[in-house]
């Protein structure tokens, strides 16, 4: 079959099983957009800004496990995607970004809308390609999907010059592909598995610490089985929430900077740590010198470079989280090694004592809406089954702390890069993947403004997203740090000249509701969630001074948490900042 490059792009997507593409047209992409016209199979979602396309594809990928696909034009089309590509890269999200390029004859000439796409994306992609010959096009697209979705997933850019999309060649989509320098393994080394099982079973104060790798590899079932077989406590990173159901009796909550007291104290006091699909990020570990001083660490990760990067590891295991946990479960079940039951029950008694401190407790109010209360009500109203996307800041932490995720792929947030503006467009991707589901975007008035134009996309495709805007008229997390560490000098963290969000939502064709009283929170949420047709923009005017607790200040250890504001309302002691 003889096809043009543009037709090959579209046909390759179909043959790859892609049902949805997020994009924005432009000069260099016109042949490809022409090939998208009047065809069935690939649905194109027109965003309002290329950053929105990348976050939407990212949200789609996080919710479904499939590879998200983006199509943009050259130059500014590409530069606008960089934030979204870097977001996906930091969180290991499979994504293929097809970027149009000026014709090969003009590359390097500073042509109109030309940018060195391969160069500018290189530091934030798993890999990228420039296709110079139409004969290489189908194979390159195949490789891109293979690389993006295998091993440690990540974004892959395919840059396609305009003349390549006009030339013709015989088309055949490759069935499979081999890359001689790339063959990620899945199984853990059997000797390491038995060493790990032995060490695990010898634990007196053990802990299981898991991250986004559990979600990406679909290992939640086997993780629960391992946790139950061992009876050990388990904590999740921000990216790993939903890895173990929040109401599981062995679950200690999230760990790290705003993790629970019990999770962080258990991390600090443990003697054996099983880390799976987590990368010992600085927001998780606090000061590395004070991190888990007595722990022997077993680290399971598909990326060898993640192992031993920040923390000394006793038993490294390279492999897929799901496969390795199955191997470990098998080894644990078969082992006859005696366990120190007495120490383990003392450990649980200690953990229960930490739990009793109720580090997520807060004082509710009848007068002013507490943000934590809104999230708890959201959980209640959606029975904990909503997809929750978020932006970045205080509202993100409150959603992570108080929603209580029952399963994987429900919590969609930018953990690594911390991208404000992620929440609304990523909700678009999730809602398109699951049209019947409740998708809530928990955001703040500062974050939501960063990609607010996507409200228009939501209207065009009738996406009934529920925007939960925790509006405290501050960049809350910035304000919190300024309160604690900059003597309350609130430099540029106040949101002045905000729009009227109700009118703003209405002007985009949606429903806007302002909620000012705690008594109205539940009713507003119920009305919004019940409305299957409309996007609801719920603008909750929340307590301006509320801070996220508990907190580990930068430079402190897990055992040095600030639990609550002190009685006189003063901030935690000043600490040196990282």
């Amino acid at each position, binding site marked *: 079959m003889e096809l043009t490059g543009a037709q090959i792009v579209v046909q390759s997507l179909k043959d790859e099983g892609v049902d949805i593409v997020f994009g924005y047209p432009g000069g260099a992409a016109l042949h490809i957009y022409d090939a998208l016209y009047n065809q069935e199979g690939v649905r194109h979602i027109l965003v309002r800004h290329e950053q929105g396309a990348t976050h939407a594809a990212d949200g789609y990928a996080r919710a479904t496990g499939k590879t998200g696909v983006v199509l943009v034009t050259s130059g500014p089309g590409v530069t606008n995607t960089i934030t979204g590509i870097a977001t996906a890269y930091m969180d290991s999200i499979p994504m293929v970004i097809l970027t149009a390029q000026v014709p090969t004859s003009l590359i390097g000439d500073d042509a109109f809308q030309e940018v060195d796409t*391969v*160069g500018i994306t*290189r*530091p934030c992609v*798993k*890999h*990228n390609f*420039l296709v110079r010959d139409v004969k290489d096009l189908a194979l390159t697209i195949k490789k891109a999907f293979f*690389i993006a979705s295998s091993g440690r997933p990540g974004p892959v850019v395919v840059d396609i010059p305009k003349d390549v999309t006009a030339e013709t060649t015989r088309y055949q989509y490759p069935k499979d592909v081999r*890359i*001689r*320098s*790339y063959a990620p393994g899945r199984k853990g080394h059997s000797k390491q598995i038995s060493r790990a099982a032995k060490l695990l079973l010898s634990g007196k104060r053990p802990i299981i610490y898991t991250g986004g790798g559990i979600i990406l590899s679909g290992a939640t079932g086997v993780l629960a089985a391992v946790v139950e077989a061992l009876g050990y406590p388990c904590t999740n990173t921000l990216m790993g929430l939903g890895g173990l159901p929040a109401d599981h009796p062995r679950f200690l909550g999230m760990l790290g900077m705003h993790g629970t007291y019990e999770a962080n104290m258990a991390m600090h006091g443990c003697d054996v740590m099983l880390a799976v699909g987590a990368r010992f990020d600085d927001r998780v570990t606090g000061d590395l010198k004070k991190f888990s001083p007595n722990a022997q660490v077993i680290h399971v990760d598909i*990326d*060898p*470079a993640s192992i*031993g*990067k920040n923390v000394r590891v006793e038993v490294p295991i390279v492999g897929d989280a799901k496969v390795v946990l199955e191997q470990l479960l098998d080894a644990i079940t078969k082992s006859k090694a005696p366990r120190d039951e007495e120490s383990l029950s003392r450990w649980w008694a200690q953990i229960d004592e930490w739990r009793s401190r109720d580090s997520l407790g807060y004082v509710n109010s009848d007068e002013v809406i507490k943000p934590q209360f809104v999230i708890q009500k959201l959980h209640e109203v959606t029975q904990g089954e909503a997809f929750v996307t978020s932006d970045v800041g205080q509202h993100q932490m409150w959603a992570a702390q108080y929603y209580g995720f029952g399963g994987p792929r429900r919590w969609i947030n930018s953990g690594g890069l911390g991208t404000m503006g992620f929440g609304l467009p990523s909700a678009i991707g999730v809602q398109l993947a699951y049209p019947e589901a409740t998708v809530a975007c928990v955001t703040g008035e500062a974050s939501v403004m960063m990609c607010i134009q996507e409200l228009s996309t939501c209207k065009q495709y009738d996406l009934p997203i529920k925007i939960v805007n925790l509006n405290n008229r501050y960049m809350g997390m910035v304000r919190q740090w300024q309160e604690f560490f900059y003597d309350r000098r609130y430099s540029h963290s106040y949101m002045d000249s905000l729009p009227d969000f109700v009118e703003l939502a209405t002007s985009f064709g949606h429903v806007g509701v302002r909620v000012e009283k705690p008594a109205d929170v539940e009713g507003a949420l119920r009305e919004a969630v019940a409305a299957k047709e409309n996007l609801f923009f719920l603008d909750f005017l929340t307590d301006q001074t509320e801070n996220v607790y508990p907190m580990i200040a930068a430079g402190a250890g897990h055992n040095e948490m600030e639990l609550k504001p002190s009685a006189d309302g003063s901030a935690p002691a000043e600490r040196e900042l990282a």
Partner: protein
Amino acid sequence: MRRTLSLLVENEPGALSRIAGLFSARGYNIESLTVAPTEDESLSRMTIVTRGSEEIIEQITKQLNKLIDVVRLLDLTEGRHIERELLLLKVRAQGADREEIKRLVDIFRGRIIDVDEETYTIELTGPGDKLDAFVDALPAAEIYEVVRSGVSGIARGDRALRL
């Protein structure tokens, strides 16, 4: 710790910038880097000399192996190996210096490859410290130009870096 890494990489445009970019993005040290095509035209051979603690070197090799364009990697420093570097040097050679410099070149087993009334152009190969010693032996004020290739390395015996 000084380490000499030998790599086989895809002979593709962009492969070099991926490797150089990795070193600059992660703050690793490059002392020298040499690259040229091999007998297999789809592959380039690269020798990188770097410095760092054991943990850093481990990260460098892991991060390099993660690059799709890196096909094979060998830390030459882990075994017996040979390193060579090429030096091209232009020096003022007039009057009595002419004989003196020629003798020095002979001692270091270098070659004078170009001559005019004022200068010698000299070629010398060897391990880096031999080249250092030669440069140090010349009167510094008389040296016009020093061109060094960076280190190329190969393992001794039957250890080989190949597909």
